[in-house]
Structures are given as structure tokens and as C-alpha cells.
């Protein structure tokens, strides 16, 4: 198992555009969480999905949305991009919704110009 995978690795967008980031969890894991990590800071929780339902939400505007598919993979969508959305976006999977142990992916580096 390759662990949690994310695509793309890097992405450059301009202000106002929309972006979709993808995550495939470890086989057998039903929970996917998304984090934003701005340079010099720790990861900030955006969403958790478990069994295709939203189970947690951080303090992010409605421009951020996500969904989880029947195979437990997930997409994070960000609309109307701002310069401040430039960050590393991390996905993490876990077997349950309890967030006891999360396995992180390598991240997607988003740059907004």
C-alpha cells in the first residue's frame, strides 16, 4: 500500500479561479480529513468526512467544500481563490471517525497568483 496519495503535487492558480484537490486514503480507511498548512504554521483543520458524511468542520469560509465518494476517496474544492489560500493542503486518513491516529499524505502545494 502506497499510503495516502494526493494529486496534484503542485498547482498554480490565479485569483478568482476554482481548484479541486484529490485524496485517496489507505485501503480500509473510511475517514478522510483535510488540513491547510500555511508556511511557518501548523496544519489547520478544514473538514473531516466519514462514511461519505461530513463529521467535522473548521473555521473556513463557504468557499471551501469537500465530498467523499463511495470508494472513500475525497475531493476538496476551493472557489474564488484568494492570495491567502496559498498553502500546503494535507489529506489524512484513519480507520474510524475518532481521529485517534491519522496517516497523512504528502500534500498538494497550491500557489495563488
Amino acid at each position: 500500500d502506497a499510503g495516502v496519495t494526493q494529486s496534484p503535487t503542485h498547482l498554480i492558480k490565479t485569483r478568482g479561479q476554482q481548484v479541486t484537490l484529490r485524496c485517496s486514503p489507505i485501503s480500509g480507511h473510511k475517514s478522510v480529513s483535510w488540513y491547510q498548512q500555511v508556511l511557518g504554521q501548523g496544519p489547520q483543520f478544514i473538514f473531516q468526512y466519514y462514511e461519505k458524511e461530513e463529521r467535522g468542520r473548521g473555521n473556513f469560509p463557504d468557499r471551501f467544500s469537500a465530498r467523499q465518494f463511495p470508494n472513500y476517496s475525497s475531493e476538496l474544492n476551493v472557489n474564488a481563490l484568494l492570495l491567502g489560500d496559498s498553502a500546503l493542503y494535507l489529506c489524512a486518513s484513519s480507520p474510524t471517525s475518532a481521529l485517534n491516529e491519522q496517516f497523512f499524505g504528502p500534500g498538494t502545494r497550491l500557489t495563488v497568483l
Partner: protein
Amino acid sequence: AQRVTQPEKLLSVFKGAPVELKCNYSYSGSPELFWYVQYSRQRLQLLLRHISRESIKGFTADLNKGETSFHLKKPFAQEEDSAMYYCALRSRASGGYNKLIFGAGTRLAVHP
């Protein structure tokens, strides 16, 4: 407010010296705390959690509810301990909602 504070951005020690990475939290309920580590060019990974009361790679962390702290300690640092360390708090809300709150991280540099 729920918050995790790691007061040191960088901790620099020599090999064999004791290490203490500080973590303080603010949480109104019963806290569940974790330490995550990121080695160079590797993914963020769980190091230990307070509920397990275990020692991993020689590191231990004790939850002190009176001081609202969860400091990470190791008696003798090794060069391979050099990494970024993040303290995290699991916040549980009604309806089964969970979220994980991370501190800003401390970079540990162990010199030969």
C-alpha cells in the same frame, strides 16, 4: 477558546543532552492530546498520544491538567531526532463531530 501553544519555534541541543518540547493547551472539556513529528522529506506522522501512556523512540509525554501542559521529553537526544514536532488537541463537539487542533510546531535540531 480551544488552542494549542508551542512557545518555541526552534530548540537546539547537542547529542546526548535532555530535550523538552513544550506544549500548552486551552480546552474546556477532557483533553486528548497527541504529538506528531515530521522528519526531513517525510510525511507528518503520529509519534505518541497521551491516552496510550507509551514511550516511542525514547520520547514520553505526560498530561498535566493542572498546568494544562503536555510537554514532550527525551533524556538523551540523538541526531536522528532532528525534526519538526507538532502538538495536537482533539476537540469533541456534540453530534460526534471531532476536530484536531495543531500547534505551530517546534523545530528540534540536535547537533553532534
